[in-house]
């Protein structure tokens, strides 16, 4: 009996990959020596005004989100927050270049990308708040869980994109990683797999200068992180990560290339982390104020503002409207985050296996007894006698 004769076999026939020719000239894979820029160059005139205004509104909203989340850590409402202030252009572009059917694979710093993709701002924070790991259904939003181990989400993006291509689906995966993450073995393995499988993946490296305290010079000896692409047989693109228009263009091209079946691209966004690694980190121990100030002059919001006001696309009124919208988002976030989450401790055992093992049933019974003793079996907050865990 062959597979064709089997019931159900017609449902799914894997699609073979596009033909592959060995590359004889690596030059097209090499990144340009200077990061690609749009804003402040002649190319800016060709940029779509509607897109620029959308990017601007999202950047301002994103910055406000970062500030609000950082404030929430000080009030004890968030366990930790790794701010992406200064990197908003990367975050927003990553979200906006994807279609609904595409997948985003964020790292722990990429909450903003997930929110810009449409995830509820509170659901996006459940990991960092500490009430649950992933507060959303990844399949519903096509956003993988925010990934805390470094670079381990990259092979997932490759596998997913590969599976989608096998199924004949027109889906691209965009995976985000930091400069430190490029030193991890999973980064290498993911890029290699993606290139060999011609998987429709875009790897976005946000080179923000530091892996906690370790500067890029101690992280790599490569001419640039984008140069790493050449060794795998995929194009590397170097882009100004604070230039939202450039980010959008380069990522759009990489996504389009992946969708055409031409394989993966590695994009290095050169940017800067204006805040510390997280609220728990003291950045003054490893970098000076002058460096931070230099980057402040190259702020992604200012760059775009300059372009938009210069072309008469944005005035003070327009800016106020955008800021007010961001403020309303922050208010809503504050309000929701100030409410205590209602948690059921029995959930601890709910999703370890599809069916609880005997061992877990015993342990769940023990916890239930403890909770009953704590709250009384007829706790009015919970009809199962479990208590609400507050």
């Amino acid at each position, binding site marked *: 009996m062959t597979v064709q004769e*089997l019931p159900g076999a017609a449902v799914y026939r894997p699609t073979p990959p596009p033909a592959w020719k060995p590359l004889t000239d690596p030059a097209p894979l090499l990144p340009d020596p200077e990061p690609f820029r749009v804003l402040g160059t002649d190319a800016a005139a060709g940029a779509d005004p509607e897109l620029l205004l959308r990017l601007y509104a999202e950047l301002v909203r994103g910055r406000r989100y970062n500030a609000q989340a950082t404030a929430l850590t000080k009030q004890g409402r968030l366990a930790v927050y790794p701010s992406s202030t200064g990197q908003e252009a990367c975050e927003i572009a990553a979200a906006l270049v994807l279609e609904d059917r595409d997948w985003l694979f964020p790292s722990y710093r990429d909450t903003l990308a997930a929110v810009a993709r449409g995830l509820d701002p509170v659901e996006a924070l459940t990991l960092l708040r500490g009430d649950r790991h992933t507060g959303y259904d990844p399949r519903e939003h096509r956003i993988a869980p925010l990934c805390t181990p470094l670079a381990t989400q990259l092979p997932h993006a490759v596998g997913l994109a590969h599976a989608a291509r096998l199924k004949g689906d027109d889906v691209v995966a965009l995976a985000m990683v930091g400069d430190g993450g490029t030193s991890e073995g999973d980064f290498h*393995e993911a890029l290699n797999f993606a290139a060999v499988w011609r998987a429709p993946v875009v790897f976005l490296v946000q080179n923000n200068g530091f892996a906690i305290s370790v500067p890029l010079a101690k992280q790599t000896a490569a001419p640039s992180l984008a140069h790493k692409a050449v060794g795998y047989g995929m194009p590397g693109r170097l882009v100004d990560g604070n230039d939202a228009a450039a980010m959008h263009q380069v990522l759009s091209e990489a996504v389009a290339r992946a969708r055409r079946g031409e394989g993966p691209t590695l994009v290095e966004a050169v940017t800067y982390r204006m805040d510390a690694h997280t609220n728990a980190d003291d950045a003054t121990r490893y970098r000076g104020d002058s460096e931070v100030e230099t980057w402040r002059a190259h702020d992604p919001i200012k760059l775009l503002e300059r372009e938009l006001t210069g072309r008469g696309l944005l005035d003070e009124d327009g800016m106020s409207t955008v800021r007010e919208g961001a403020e309303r988002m922050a208010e809503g976030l504050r309000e929701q985050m100030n409410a205590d989450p209602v948690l059921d401790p029995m959930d601890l055992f709910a999703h370890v296996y599809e069916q609880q093992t005997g061992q877990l049933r015993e342990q769940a019974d023990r916890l239930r007894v403890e909770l009953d003793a704590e709250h009384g079996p007829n706790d009015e907050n919970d009809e199962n006698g479990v208590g609400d865990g507050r």
Partner: protein
Amino acid sequence: MSTAAATAGERTGRAKPATMAQALGRALRDSMAEDPTVHVLGEDVGTLGGVFRVTDGLAKEFGDERCTDTPLAEAGILGAAVGMAMYGLRPVVEMQFDAFAYPAFEQLVSHVAKMRNRTGGAMPMPITVRVPYGGGIGGVEHHSDSSEAYYMATPGLHVVMPATVDDAYGLLRESIASDDPVVFLEPKRLYWSKADWSPDAPASVEPIGRAVVRRPGRSATLITYGPSLPVCLEAAEAATAEGWDLEVVDLRSLVPFDDETVAASVRRTGRAVVVHESSGFGGPGGEIAARVTERCFHHLEAPVLRVAGFDIPYPPPMQERHHLPGVDRVLDAVARLQWEAES
């Protein structure tokens, strides 16, 4: 595997000798034929058919896209499998040799085992990780590790190991069909063990997590699994000369653990020895002995003993026979079960 052979013969009436490796291959083939989302990937699993030939013929029958030779990178293989599972496929990955699986450990522990939990049940990981494992085949270093203790210490994983040809087929089918990740440990030295077995009418298999009494007895229980099962069955036969009637329990799965079958046996016999070839310290035997003691203390005539590999890195092939628990070491433990208490 005299018990399994007899069962298979009765069942079909036209069973032929088959090796464990063949039964495993047939399980992969049947799973792929039944469910088009089952994909096999790993190093050398395609054209070569795997270094143990378990995947022989799969690429030819189902194509390179469903039986895929991957780059040589275990974390990449398992990491890609995670993404494939996220998109609705059912990957079966091969880790070629036990110690080769360690680069994939982070993917296994941090993602494969935890994804269901991390996502509140929204994203199960129906991945089977096949690991040819254990010693006794004269492999050089890094080819003979018993790594089950690492896996069983990781919540979210099932840890399964067949010891018979029937179970090799049945448990692998069950593992692939499971929506939870399974680390499927294949005892390398039993790959060529044979039993009369019919692939056309394979035995139906109990769900993962049931132990089975391979040999009934009254004097003591040998609790074992995987490569140590034949050792225990042989020891039980030899023990009859001493007047001991040993019961042999094959766990078939360390996670979930079948407390009921094990405890019922020990309550009947009052004595127990746990036998496995992985190191004793921090090994599965300690956990099993503790569980047995907690449940059967008032039935026990003697402490639960362990016969395990030494607490040493797996030795070079010319020395491995000293490390692996053999029949004599099992019988010696049985002799130490405080038999005088009976008289």
